[in-house]
């Protein structure tokens, strides 16, 4: 693996829930990233974010890592879950709540 792939792998494996996004949770820089953050917040999940706009290597590398062309990308317990469309579908069906282990309200 290249250096970037190793760094991404480390981020994915050392965080239970990690969202690769454009911007930060507080200031998302893209509508899709904003939607992903809103979903996780709604579930009351505790998560890390990685701002790909701050790191070109990760921005390009993450697409190769998951064979997925777009950002945001959500990883839970080391597994790629999907982008914001899949997150929304899984949120609506209740699957995401189960996956991130948030308590039912």
């Amino acid at each position, binding site marked *: 693996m290249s250096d970037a792939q190793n760094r991404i792998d480390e981020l994915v494996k050392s965080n239970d829930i990690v969202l690769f996004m454009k911007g930060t949770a507080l200031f998302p820089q893209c*509508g*899709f990233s904003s939607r992903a953050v809103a979903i996780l917040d709604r579930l009351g999940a505790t998560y890390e974010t990685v701002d790909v706009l701050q790191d070109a290597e990760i921005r390009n590398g993450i*697409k190769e890592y998951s*064979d*997925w*062309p*777009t*950002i945001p990308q959500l990883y839970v317990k080391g597994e*790629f*879950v*999907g*982008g914001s*469309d*899949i997150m929304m*579908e*899984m949120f609506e069906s209740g699957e995401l709540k189960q996956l991130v282990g948030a308590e039912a309200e």
Partner: protein
Amino acid sequence: MAMAASEIERLIKVSIPDADVTIRDLAGDGDHYAARVVAKSFEGMSRIRQHQAVYAALGGRVGGELHALQLETAVPTEIET
């Protein structure tokens, strides 16, 4: 660079011949689309694989030439209620 909805539909159908494709132009700028792709051949594939099949059909345009494609995939039986 913008892309025509008909071109997106054509490319998807070349790779996934049994796909039923519905495209909406979200912003009217030829750059933000929503696509719903329903195909029998998606059966048994995870959601991630289904989306990857559509991205592959579009040959690397998503995330580049085509900035935003909101994507929804399904197998026909899932929507017949």
